């Protein structure tokens, strides 16, 4: 029915693959910007296309653009620029392996969602699979990256995935909930960014593999 939503969802999924394949922190942030933009597009399109026209989705679209396309990535870049950092390998496995595993995650999310009764009829469809894969890949991204900023980006991708899932499956959560989620995400990122400063100050590095003193 809304075949361009399918296209968008695949593109969002694809952007997370690109994210997984990125090597530099700067390029993560860039990819994240693109992904957020795609999501904003989706929300906007949905806001226009749905029968009654959903104003709240348009507001959300704007919010996404302001927050996730402009504000948060800028902030991350600033944080990244201000902490001293030596370019080094940031991921724990080879990029190709990571990408292949990400593919497996897509298959897995199809595998787990396919039990749902009424799949591919109505609003439960491949878009959900795609957006759930984004969440899983985001989580996987967090696991695969050593630097603190990488983890923040991963967390943001998970949030993106969540939002897309909500968008595709239920055309967005109730507006007040959406708003709250955005505030939460913003606060979380601010706090995390602040912590990255502190970490870089205390540990002379933002490599979180060095945060391993608390054991047992």
């Amino acid at each position, binding site marked *: 029915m809304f075949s361009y939503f399918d296209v968008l969802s695949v593109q969002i999924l694809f952007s997370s693959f690109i994210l997984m394949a990125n090597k530099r922190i700067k390029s993560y942030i860039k990819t994240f910007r693109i992904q957020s933009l795609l999501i904003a597009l989706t929300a906007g399109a949905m806001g226009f296309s749905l029968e009654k026209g959903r104003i709240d989705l348009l507001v959300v679209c704007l919010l996404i653009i302001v927050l996730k396309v402009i504000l948060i990535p800028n902030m991350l870049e600033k944080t990244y620029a201000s902490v001293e950092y030596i370019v080094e390998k940031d991921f724990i496995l080879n990029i190709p392996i990571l990408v292949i595993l990400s593919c497996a995650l897509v298959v897995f999310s199809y595998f787990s969602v396919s039990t749902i*009764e009424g799949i591919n009829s109505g609003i439960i469809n491949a878009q959900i699979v795609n957006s759930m894969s984004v969440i899983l890949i985001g989580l996987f991204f967090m696991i695969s990256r050593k630097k603190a900023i990488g983890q923040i980006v991963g967390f943001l991708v*998970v949030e993106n995935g969540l939002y897309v899932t909500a968008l595709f499956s239920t055309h967005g959560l109730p507006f007040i909930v959406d708003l709250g989620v955005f505030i939460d995400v913003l606060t979380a990122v601010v*706090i995390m960014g602040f912590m990255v400063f502190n970490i870089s100050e205390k540990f002379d590095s933002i490599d979180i593999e060095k945060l391993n003193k608390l054991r047992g």
Partner: protein
Amino acid sequence: MGFVLLAAPIIAVLLFLFCSKRTLQHTVSVLTSTVLLITAVFITRGVLLWGKIEYQALGGIFYVDSLSIIVLDIVLIISFLVSIYSVSYMENEIKNEKIAPGKLKIFYVLKYSFIFTMILALTVKNMGIMWIAIEATTLASAFLVSFYSNRYALEAAWKYIIICSVGIALALLGIIFLHLSSIEVLHGSQYLDWPALCENAKLLNPSVVRLAFIFILVGFGTKAGLAPMHTWLPDAHSQAPSPVSALLSGVLLNSAMYGIIRTVAIVNRNLGSNAYVGRLLIAVGVLSIATAAIFIITQRDYKRLLAYSSIEHMGIIAVAVGVFTPLSIFGALLHMINHSFTKSMLFLSSGRVLQKYSTKDISKTKGVLRVIPITGTAFLLGLFAIAGTPPFSVFASKLNIAISIFEIGGFWLGAIFLLLLAVVFVGIALNLFRIFYGQDYVQDKKTSTPSAESNFAGIAVIMVLLTIISITGIFIPYELKELVLNAQNIIIGS
């Protein structure tokens, strides 16, 4: 009345931002807590009278029933006691130059935002907002965990915020699925409303509900410290200042568990049987107890040990909820209450030990009973209490839960459950009992200022908690019993 609960902490936070005298800050803190406590009494009375309290204002999000009032009362009582305790505790910390005097303001601001988020999580009926509030608890408490800003505290806080955020994010996915399952059943204004979901539970799409439950279990389970998502908990609870540890262990975990219980109520109504949910919860619960047992056996840090014990007790509650008979739910709710009071008392006592000895290392702490006899006695009794020894309250709830397990014929489950609890006791006894006896060994004489001994308010708080857990071990007020029974009906459906 209900909005006082939400307004008071916010006003307090604003006041803190504008007042810089320490005595004033303490006063504001204690006053706010008192106001909250008094409000809680009125709301509890209301709930006892009418069963639930709902306001139409603000889109009718305010909703308190017997289940939430139980958890809410725990939050408010413990935060009241912790506020009193904090006064002298924080003063001592400043005197011992652990923290800068200016940071007290930050402490109180964060603490009351933290309390606000917890109150919010417990007083809304919209599960989405509940989620937001629970996520916000993480954010509010992250800087409380890293309050001492040393490397360990920072590490703990980072792990705390990352793991909990990820976990909670998964819970949001679960809530989205719950929403998805109900989208054809409910109307726009009812979306994600717990009472509406619960009422129409039979009509929801079961396969989506099942998927939703998994995400919510993992998500809120992370926050509740259920294994294997518990990994942040020992770090955060042991690095935070002791009053905050008491809040985290005694209160925050309950809020997350509350989210799980709410979901379970919907899912079990929807699926019509407990098999699906029960198996998962019991598995996770037993795994939590076992993990805690393994880690407690050789624990060298007493605050970490207490943190692991919290994991154990969350596991117990999860098992009890998993069993899902009236008796087990009764036990679970009772256990929630008992664990909160006992564990807060333990963390508060351990705070006094920590201030006295300046070390969390068990092997460097000796003669607690001589150095601080009253706190020491309370700490020792509290350890027995938390391990489930009568006449303390944890025994009563543990007994009810164990009986409920055996009642449904789960012999092996019950046996493993009880044996694992015994292993935990062995661990506590092996490691922790030794700090109480022997010659006193205070590492640094300077840190043992006499004021630490004359902290009457702190001792009083600990004694109040000790009294509560001793009395509720053999007797609970009829009002409380009624509340718990009502909550049991809410969860199971009468």
